[in-house]
């Protein structure tokens, strides 16, 4: 029997006829990063908003850190941190003023709020920018300040709703590092994302959400294996070369290559990515097949979806 950090059973949330959550089950182990993966409109954000006490729900049960969300929302608020899709910090204050204000609103009292702000600025590498207005911060710094504000009470559970949406790769890496540091210090993180690689990088377990329900709950490895791992993709210049390309790919790669006539594309699963790529390129060169594009593709959310649901990930 586990003590779950987050536990939801049959969670329901309706907006008129639309069921944003349709019996969602979720169980998050303490001290881990748990990914909620799904396309736009799948119900990820609704789930986080319900668990973070921002939204009332219509059915089911939810507990955060052992506290009933419906019955004691105010106690839950003392145990969680939330970083939403926007960096919810005040642009017109400095980083330090933001953290001191939120610290006061967390009822730390003036002195503790000030010293906690200093600690968090240091921890999220914002000390140098502490007294600058947030409007001058980069996207990554802003998101780190947002994370710092969520960490003021050292929450047991931190909800991160698409924390890297709209960030460049460098800022994304910075945020990922901050999340890893938090988990190393004992925080449980529930992370929503549309990117399989983000969930793969951070989470030890992933729940795939579709139409308000969990359709899979597994480790990132197992999910990727189900999808079939990396694939190689070749696009010849002439459609007439498609059979020749398929022949080359079939010899080098693991499984049966799939030929997509409409997109003038051949693709097949690979295991040893780089050597498969170079062998395919060499073989095509030897056969003098003119190639427009050749590359490796990691399985995306779309692939996971196609495999799990038999249809494309629809964006609602």
């Amino acid at each position, binding site marked *: 029997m586990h003590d779950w950090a987050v536990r939801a059973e049959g969670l329901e949330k309706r907006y008129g006829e639309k069921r944003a959550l349709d019996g969602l089950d979720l169980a998050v182990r303490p001290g881990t990063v748990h990914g909620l993966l799904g396309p736009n409109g799948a119900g990820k954000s609704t789930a986080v*908003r319900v668990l*973070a*006490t*921002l*939204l*009332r729900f219509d059915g089911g049960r939810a507990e955060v850190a052992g506290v009933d969300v419906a019955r004691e929302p*105010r*106690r839950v*608020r*003392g*145990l*969680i941190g*939330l970083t*939403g*899709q*926007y*960096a*919810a*910090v*005040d*642009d*017109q*204050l*400095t980083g330090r*003023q933001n953290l001191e*204000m*939120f610290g*006061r*609103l*967390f*009822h*730390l009292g003036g002195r503790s709020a000030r010293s906690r702000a200093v600690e968090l600025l240091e921890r999220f590498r914002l000390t140098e920018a502490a007294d600058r*207005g947030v409007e001058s911060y980069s996207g990554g710094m802003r998101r780190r300040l947002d994370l710092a*504000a969520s960490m003021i*009470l*050292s*929450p*047991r559970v931190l909800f991160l709703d698409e924390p890297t949406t709209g960030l460049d790769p460098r800022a994304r890496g910075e945020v990922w590092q901050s999340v890893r540091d938090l988990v190393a*210090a*004992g*925080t449980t993180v529930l992370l929503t994302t549309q990117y399989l690689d983000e969930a793969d990088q951070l989470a030890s377990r992933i729940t795939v959400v579709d139409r308000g329900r969990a359709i899979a709950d597994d480790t990132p490895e197992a999910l990727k294996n189900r999808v079939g791992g990396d694939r190689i993709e070749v696009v010849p210049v002439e459609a007439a070369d498609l059979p020749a390309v398929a022949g080359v790919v079939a010899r080098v790669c693991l499984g049966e290559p799939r030929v997509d006539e409409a997109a003038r594309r051949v693709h097949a699963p690979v295991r040893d990515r780089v050597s498969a790529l170079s062998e395919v390129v060499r073989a095509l060169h030897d056969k003098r097949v003119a190639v427009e594009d050749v590359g490796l593709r990691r399985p995306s959310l779309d692939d996971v979806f196609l495999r799990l649901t038999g249809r494309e990930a629809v964006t609602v």
Partner: protein
Amino acid sequence: MSTTATASSASSASTPTGRGRLYWALADSWTVVRRVLTHYRRKPVLIAWQLGFPIVSVLLYGYVLGGAMRPPGGGEAADYRNYLLPGMFVMTMSFGFMHTATAVVHDQSKGVIDRFRSMPMAPSAVVTGRGLTDLIVACAELSILLATALAMGWRAESGVAGAAGAFGVLLLLRFALTWVGVWLGLLVPNPEAAGGLFVVAFPLTMVSSVFAAPSTMPGWLGTVAAWNPLSATAGAARSLFGNEIGSDGSWVQEHAPLMAVVWPLAITAVFLPLAIRRYQRLSR
């Protein structure tokens, strides 16, 4: 584990048992007030923007149009300016609701309100803090407008007590309209839409006794203008300042000081619950 210890001690401090709910409701409101005052301290230009419009309006209406205008009781252009200035105070108070709405919609769209709502702070503080801040800012606006008016030669003929009463009814109007602003701020989808409120606010301000006596307007328009809540505040402010009232003897204008209290109370009675309900509906 030290993190758990911090979390539990901090959360117990926020429960009603530590200090009373009322204490935290007030303390949290004050933190929200300080937040907005810090905005102005960091960027005094914000208040300049907010005040630019009424000051420019005072100068434009007072000197560009004012030369061609005569006050309701007859007199010179200078007399019109004396009639106009209390009206400009009213206009500044009435436009204030747009600043409230803009600030609220900004916080809402940026997720700041969601962050507040996910914290163990007093939920009422978000709204009461806003109301208090708006009153403090309104005081600053009135002081600067007052200085402009005095520089233009306007005088409160009634002395300090009357002037204090006049500022009282002006702030009461601003207070009432704050709830309209909070309600609208939670209602409109984005900050751009809040900018569109001006299109509604401007004619609503014009159709009143702020610029001209309702008796000079066509019949039905004059009636609407006379009953406009802004006319009540303008009439009350003029009489408390000891300036020309320009009444046509209608009941509502004769009872302007009474209506200057009744209207804001009525607006508050309608829009404060609406704003609170809208805020609570965020969790639907």
